[in-house]
């Protein structure tokens, strides 16, 4: 926009908060990746899982089991590492793209210190076993409140800055930041709705299939809007800056932005394929994942083709290398995602290491390398001193790249191997080819080991980055850029109404409404929807051909109106979630049963269930027998919706490092479970030794001797049961004494049974509760 000479103002950017976030991101990055390497090695060496093996004896430490530290690794990687990196990138680039200092230094500071405080609190509570039991949403409810408050502060600071901008229109990076801020807020709040039972514990308001759907709507879109869209925004600023070339295609930006934010939200159910989830949701999850492929690759193309013409600089410049490989990894991961979302491929890959490989291709490649490129680019500019060592940065790149390749290849082979073994039948087709789960674990042990090595190489590379940046910035003089910019005089060009009431928005809304009527309705709705969709599409095409130029003018005006843009973005992301979740949440419970209803837990079993969640058992054990022949043959009849209807939160799981437990109840004896908790390897091992003896051939589950030592928190049960009654679980209206008496009676029964087999367990120990819980898994009543 060329405007007549207007008064200029001098702006000093707030680069202090950018430096803070960047250094915090590096620090937490080292922490998150270190924990990643530790939990990876735990799966190979039980000696460090839940304790330390020294002097021929296992010294148990409850805070360091895989089940408790894996959430620490994932939360640290997502919220601490990528979170801080994202804030640094967004604050740095937004100030420059809108030519305004951050609206409030005070809010910026609260944002920074509040976020770090949350991270520290998470790092303390997760090893203590304080967990909500939902993946990437484990933090306890007081921390959820804190995250929400800080996120709102971030949003206020950001949108206030946009309001004070001196750049009339919004650049594509800002679009992605807007989508990030509003969508993460929406996802986070809905998936963290809980009823507290105490200061440290709560139950989610959704249970069973509803919770499963909400959780993976969140889980999938946390990847989309926490790990993808902000980094795409960062790509759109730092890549053209680093290569000093124009962005490849503006119209590709427009198309891929809107298709990405609209389609991404629908794809969540692909995490629940072949389960008891109603089929229509599974089909939506699969087809929208396939449709997501092109929009994702639009981002990759715009990134890579912007670098075209500057490839020769790749040889010298580590930043270029990191960006090129980061964007390529994004392309790989977003091709693999739709592939894994195909139901038949998912039958093989789900619950295996393939998924772990897929995720790490994205996080190590895309997030980690984009972060590294951005840090190396920012450090000299924020501290006014050249990078300490370019060759060290190049070495970081190569060791990191080898790490990623080793990691991802090992996980591909591991996942496909284990998937094939678990699904294989013998020649006559009457039984499993690998009947002992541990045979499949032994097959992937060497691959898991290579993964741990790959992850460690990557960690070493990142530590080199930390050292390099440390040497660059210590003693350096910090700079905050000051620029002279023309002051924006003209107000927003088009009112709020004008952003919404115009042909493109009206056509799109009509097409979506008609398409939904057609897809989801029956009879009259179906026909109206079908013809309405076709008619509106044709009309839109004709209108566009007649006056398409005006449409792009409209879009340019929209870019000058941040409120209108934000509202449209919110509408695009809200539709998918609303259509999938609202019918499932509103539906009458009876329609969600499939002929069976879960038995309500006894108080002791409920106590056991909460310990199961606190210990993070769901990180390795699913409770969902999929509608697949090998699953049914291995674990029993496939799971019905009604069988988890009272599970707050649901425990369907996402990875089977150990076997499924949906029908574990009554499958083995109490003394088997006792022995297994005290020393899993004593009773769970494969007959044949592994190819490499030092890798072991028994279970890799940690021993849980503290469960025999620690007491059940009976006092907490009345409040828990009251809360679950509020949520609709038909517990009888027990008094506190009745609850206490029931706990004691059932615990005594288990302790007596163990005693008759020469095993001695205090009746009020946590282990009796967990055994009671495990022994009822799969109990249900027929209905109708």
């Amino acid at each position, binding site marked *: *926009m060329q405007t007549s000479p207007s008064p200029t103002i001098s702006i000093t950017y707030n680069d202090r908060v950018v430096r803070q976030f960047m250094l915090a991101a590096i620090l937490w990055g080292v922490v998150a990746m270190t924990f990643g390497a530790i939990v990876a090695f735990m799966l190979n060496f039980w000696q460090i899982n839940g304790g330390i093996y020294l002097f021929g004896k296992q010294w148990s430490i409850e805070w360091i089991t895989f089940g408790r530290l894996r959430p620490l690794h994932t939360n640290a990687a997502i919220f601490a590492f990528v979170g801080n990196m994202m804030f640094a990138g967004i604050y740095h*680039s937004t100030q*420059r793209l809108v030519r305004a200092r951050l609206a409030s230094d005070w809010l910026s500071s609260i944002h920074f210190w509040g976020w770090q405080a949350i991270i520290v609190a998470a790092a303390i509570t997760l090893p203590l076993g304080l967990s909500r039991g939902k993946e990437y949403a484990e933090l306890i409810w007081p921390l959820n409140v804190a995250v929400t408050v800080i996120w709102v502060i971030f949003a206020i600071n950001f949108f206030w800055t946009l309001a004070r901008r001196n*750049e009339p*229109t919004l*650049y*594509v990076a800002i679009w992605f930041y807007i989508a990030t801020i509003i969508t993460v807020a929406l996802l986070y709040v809905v998936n963290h709705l809980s009823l507290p039972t105490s200061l440290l514990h709560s139950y989610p308001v959704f249970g069973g299939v509803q919770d499963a759907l909400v959780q993976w709507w969140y889980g999938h879109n946390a990847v989309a809007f926490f790990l993808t869209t902000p980094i795409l925004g960062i790509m759109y*600023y730092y890549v*053209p*800056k680093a290569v000093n070339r*124009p*962005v*490849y*295609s*503006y*119209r590709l*930006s427009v198309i891929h932005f809107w*298709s990405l934010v609209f389609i991404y939200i629908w794809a969540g159910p692909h995490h629940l394929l*072949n389960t008891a989830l109603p*089929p*229509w949701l599974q*089909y939506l999850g699969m*087809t*929208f994942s*396939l*449709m997501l492929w*092109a*929009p994702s690759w*639009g981002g990759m*193309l715009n990134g890579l*083709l912007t670098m075209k013409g500057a490839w020769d600089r790749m040889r010298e410049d580590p930043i270029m290398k990191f960006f090129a490989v980061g964007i390529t990894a994004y392309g790989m991961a977003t091709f693999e995602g*739709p592939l894994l979302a195909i139901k038949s491929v998912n039958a093989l890959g789900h619950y295996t290491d393939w998924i772990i490989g897929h995720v790490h291709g994205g996080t190590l490649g895309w997030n980690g390398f984009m972060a590294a490129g951005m840090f190396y680019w920012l450090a000299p500019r924020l501290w006014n001193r050249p990078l300490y060592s370019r060759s060290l940065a190049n070495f970081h790149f190569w060791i990191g790249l080898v790490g990623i390749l080793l990691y991802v290849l090992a996980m591909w082979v591991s996942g496909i191997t284990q998937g094939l073994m678990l699904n294989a039948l*013998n020649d*006559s*087709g*009457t*039984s*499993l080819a690998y*009947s*002992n789960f*541990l045979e499949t674990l032994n097959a992937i042990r060497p691959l898991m080991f290579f993964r741990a090595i790959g992850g460690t190489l990557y960690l070493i590379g990142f530590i080199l980055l930390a050292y390099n940046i440390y040497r660059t910035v210590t003693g350096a003089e910090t700079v905050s850029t000051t620029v002279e910019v023309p002051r924006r005089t003209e107000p927003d060009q088009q009112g709020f109404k004008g952003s919404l009431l115009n042909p493109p928005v009206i056509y799109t809304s009509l097409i979506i409404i008609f398409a939904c009527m057609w897809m989801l309705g029956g009879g009259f709705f179906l026909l109206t929807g079908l013809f309405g969709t076709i008619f509106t599409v044709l009309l839109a095409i004709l209108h566009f051909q007649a006056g398409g130029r005006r449409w792009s003018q409209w879009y340019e005006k929209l870019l000058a109106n941040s409120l209108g843009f934000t509202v449209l973005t919110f509408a695009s992301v809200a539709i998918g979630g609303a259509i999938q979740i609202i019918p499932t949440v509103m539906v009458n419970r009876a329609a969600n049963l499939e002929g069976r209803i879960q038995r309500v837990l006894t108080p002791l079993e409920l106590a056991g269930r909460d310990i199961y969640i606190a210990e993070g058992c769901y990180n390795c054990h699913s409770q969902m027998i999929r*509608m*697949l*022949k090998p699953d*049914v*043959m*291995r674990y029993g009849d496939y799971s019905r919706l009604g069988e988890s209807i009272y599970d707050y939160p649901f425990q369907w799981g996402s990875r089977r490092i150990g076997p499924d437990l949906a029908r574990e109840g009554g*499958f*083995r*004896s109490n*003394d*088997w479970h006792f*022995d297994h908790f005290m020393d899993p390897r*004593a*009773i*769970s*091992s*494969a*007959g044949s030794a592994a190819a490499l003896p030092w890798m072991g051939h028994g279970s890799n589950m940690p021993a849980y001797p503290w469960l025999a030592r620690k007491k059940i928190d009976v006092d907490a049960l009345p409040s828990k049961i009251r809360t679950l009654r509020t949520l609709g679980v038909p517990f009888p209206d027990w008094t506190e004494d009745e609850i206490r008496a029931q706990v004691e009676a059932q615990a005594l029964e288990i302790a007596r049974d163990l005693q008759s087999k*020469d095993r001695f367990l205090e009746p009020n120990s946590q282990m009796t509760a967990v055994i009671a819980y495990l022994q009822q898994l799969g109990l249900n009543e027929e209905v109708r």
Partner: protein
Amino acid sequence: MDDPSIKREPKDKGVTLLEHSYDGIQEFDQKLPNWWLFTLYGAILFSIAYWLVVHQVLQGTRDTLLLENELAQVEARRIEETVKLLDDANLLELSRNPEFVAAGSQVFMTNQCATCHGADLRSGPGMVGVNLVDSEWKHGGNPISIFNTITQGVASAGMPRHEGILSPTAIAQVTAYVLSMQEPTQP
């Protein structure tokens, strides 16, 4: 450069560099690559077709029916295989066949039987399973009873079910192995 008369050939021509610039960043306005548009439209068309066929025509019943059919077939084959084996005399006969017994021993060792019953089948102090070589049988000691105990499991005693996990033949092999290991009954 191209012939100037061919105006609309997009190479470097026809690519506009947009006027605006944000913090020095400019944008080309390249056309969307055709192959990219093809994947976008292709995926949308496939999704519509998939939805029409699988959801609206087949009504989503396909998965349940397929699975139930598959399971019924497995069950039929399993019964067929079981009927051939299930006969006390036959199982006793098999327990004297060294190859069959060796196969049973292999199954026994790889499937965690030994972790509860002991590698020598004699159980032992602190072990979950019972002694399998003495003459005492809790759930029936004739070959068919042993076969059934392994197949169905005994929930109250913590003996897991092996139906579907092991084939009838494998269960017969284990039965034969257990029978072959019986200590001679005391006179």
